């Protein structure tokens, strides 16, 4: 179960910029917190998020511990053909996850 929510418009027109939103469940652990027993909690943040549109890389983010837990990213993509947006992310622990959304482009 990829813990993320993605939002794209139901339909877009060719050539227009449309807004893409992704909200990911991730603690974005800073590495500066301690457990109740006083042991440090290892840093584990999403270190890279990519978005491909019909296979073409259109957006890439490199977050740090300065991005809030359960991070939100919104950005714009230029509509080409109908198809799929694929989001992939990886954290410091090497855990990878992905999510996808389909885009319908009006002729």
């Amino acid at each position, binding site marked *: 179960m990829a813990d993320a929510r993605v939002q794209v418009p139901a339909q877009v027109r060719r050539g227009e*910029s449309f807004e893409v939103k992704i909200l990911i469940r991730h603690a*974005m652990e*800073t590495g*500066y917190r301690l457990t109740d027993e006083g042991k440090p909690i290892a840093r584990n943040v999403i270190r890279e998020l990519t978005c491909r*549109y019909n296979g*073409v*890389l*259109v*957006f*890439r*983010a*490199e*977050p*740090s*511990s*300065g*991005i*809030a*837990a359960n*991070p*939100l*990213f*919104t*950005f*714009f*993509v*230029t509509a080409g053909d109908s198809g799929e947006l694929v989001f992939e992310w990886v954290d410091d622990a090497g855990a990878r996850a992905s999510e996808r959304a389909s885009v319908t482009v009006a002729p």
Partner: protein
Amino acid sequence: MPLLPLRALAQAEPEVAAMKAFVGNRPVRAGRLVLDIPRIADNGNVVPVRIALPGPFAPGAEVRSIHLFSEKNPVPQMAVFHFPAPVAKVEVESRVRLAGTQRIAAVATLADGTLHAATADVVVTISACIDGS
């Protein structure tokens, strides 16, 4: 206007060291890049931020990346956003963590090397109650 010693005046103007290091001696344009962030943040754990650079962009001068820097966070580079494919509308939103009241800075890098920068000052308030839950 009260007179302040020079040192106090210098302290009154915060510097985002990470941004200076990133920019180096390259020229930076101000006034076009938009950096929206609340002037008073409810809690430093989650502060909404929006960065936008209004177009249009000439061919060869599209936005390639936006760096977001903090003055006081232990990791001063909060995020980098890359735009590998040219996009007409450059606008990103996220939520950042801020370790205390400070200045933040954003720098957009265009494909032709032009830099656009913006800064904003945020007062970060802290909770009045201890939460040991």
